[in-house]
């Protein structure tokens, strides 16, 4: 313990008068001045476009022309558009199935990895690769794996007895949906797995020992010790994943462009086609905004949960 007689710092506060410096040193003044630039930036490039998007959705607005206000007409158009309902169904199926697969697969991955073995850190790093590598680039590799003429997957399937030439993965509506779900799962599974693994590692070993002494089987230890303790993390990871799967764009745009016959068209790709392809900014904005109620609910739920957690 030492007693300091002098300030260590050369920058002593000016004394004796209420200076600008001391005003700036108030917590509230300092905080708001510090936060002003990022907040203004976000207001300009998130807040403003968000409001402008709502305005656009109420306009007839072909690209490069001024918009005219049409009220809810765009939403009515969507309501009577069979493709729109197909898109809604696709998005729901895609999100639900992919999320479920990622959750179950991720949990299995986490449980398998929660053991001691050599090179564990290397294995973990390799397992995360699908999540790290730019989605577009890995999707191109999948496109080649599923190629109609030279699919390596079909080469293997034919080898084990599937009739030649094997399934047309991206040409058949149902198989195309299966493909985008499988690739989304492939990419997102490591995120679940590694996050849940981190959660598993925080479970105190004493709990397992106590459960074992009380005669709990492996399944019972998992069901009554592991799962309840992991539940908050599972919930957060799932909400995250649902939000970004629901609004997914790049995988589908690259792999199928929404085809065949809109069988894999999602809200984001459909909004893109209408706004950027057909040049109908207003109608496109209304399609994108259809995602808002569900997304808002999920985002509010997750935000509240994160704050409490």
């Amino acid at each position, binding site marked *: 313990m030492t007693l300091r007689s002098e300030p260590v710092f050369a920058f002593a506060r000016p004394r004796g008068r209420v200076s600008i410096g001391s005003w700036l040193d108030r917590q509230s003044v300092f905080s708001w001045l510090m936060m002003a630039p990022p907040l203004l930036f976000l207001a300009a490039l998130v807040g403003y476009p968000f409001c402008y998007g709502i305005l656009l959705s109420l306009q007839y607005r072909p690209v490069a022309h001024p918009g005219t206000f049409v009220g809810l007409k765009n939403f009515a158009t969507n309501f009577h558009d069979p493709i729109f309902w197909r898109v809604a169904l696709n998005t729901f199926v895609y999100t639900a199935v992919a999320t479920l697969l990622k959750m179950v697969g991720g949990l299995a991955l986490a449980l398998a990895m929660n053991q001691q073995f050599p090179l564990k850190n290397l294995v973990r790093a390799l397992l995360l690769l699908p999540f790290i590598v730019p989605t577009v680039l890995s999707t191109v590799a999948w496109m080649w794996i599923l190629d109609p003429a030279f699919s390596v997957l079909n080469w293997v399937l034919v080898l084990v007895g599937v009739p030649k030439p094997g399934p047309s993965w991206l040409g058949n509506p149902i198989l195309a949906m299966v493909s985008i779900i499988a690739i989304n799962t492939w990419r997102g599974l490591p995120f679940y797995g590694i996050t849940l693994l981190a959660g598993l590692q925080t479970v105190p070993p004493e709990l397992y020992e106590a459960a074992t002494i009380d005669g709990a089987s492996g399944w019972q230890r998992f069901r009554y010790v592991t799962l309840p303790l992991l539940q908050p993390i599972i919930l957060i990871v799932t909400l995250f994943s649902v939000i970004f799967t629901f609004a997914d764009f790049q995988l589908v745009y690259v792999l199928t462009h929404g085809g065949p016959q809109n069988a894999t068209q999602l809200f984001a790709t459909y909004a893109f086609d209408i706004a950027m392809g057909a040049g109908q900014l207003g109608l496109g904005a209304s399609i994108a905004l259809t995602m808002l109620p569900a997304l808002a609910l999920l985002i509010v739920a*997750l935000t509240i949960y994160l704050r409490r957690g």
Partner: protein
Amino acid sequence: MVTGRGPIERVVRLWLPVGFFLVLALFPFYWMAITSFKPNSELYNRHVMPLVLHHPTLKHYIDLLTQTSFLTWTWNTMLVAVVSTAISLVLGVMLAYPLARMRFAGAGLIAMTVAAIYLVPQPLLFIPLADLINRLGLGNTLTAVILTYPTMLVPFSAWLLLGYFKTVPMELEEAARIDGASRLQTMRRIFLPLCTPGFISAGIFAFTLSQNEFLYALIFLTKTSVRTVPVGVIAELIRGDVFYWGQLMAGALLGSIPVAIIYSFFVEHYVAGLTAGSVKG
């Protein structure tokens, strides 16, 4: 946990599932790599066993680097990723520090707003943003993406840093304050140097996210000279219905390498950020 397992049980419970997940995760990259080294005669020959490489060639790489603008795209991607990551870290700190350390009215609301913005997916914003970028005359400039990437990265970095900042003890800052340092000086000279691991985590994440970004780049960048790797590969290596698979795979592999290298140096920070971002805010 239970010890003293037999070797067979260890194979079933450990190596089988881990091996399965490893093969699943890595096969597409293996396939990408061997395809990129195969000559066309081998690539499009159904009578050759496809899983191994028979006559390796660098032709696709040479074509990719000499006949396309791949190097320009790589440079653009790096430039955009580095600049938008830097912007995002600076703005992220400016948001996170007051939220982590100061008491003021509205702090809770701002923290919630930042978290909510971080969760807003791009497809909700891209149409109005495209119009805005056009009106600003920024179409086909790298500025367009350098400005818009931080809309995702700033809230993200702020959120991640906020979590990290809260784990740093306050004593040093309190000592600096008692010694007469202003709040700004305390933050810059005392606090921020303690937070390097947090910056590395947030930086790696922001960097990989900007390398991964596709939608804004697709909309804002339509000229070869300003494209990034993901958009360039999709828009220019797929010409109509013709797929140059060898070049595509070479491009996909080369485009993945920078991210993979940076990631491999900082895996621990990446995993820390991954879990911090979702497990604890």
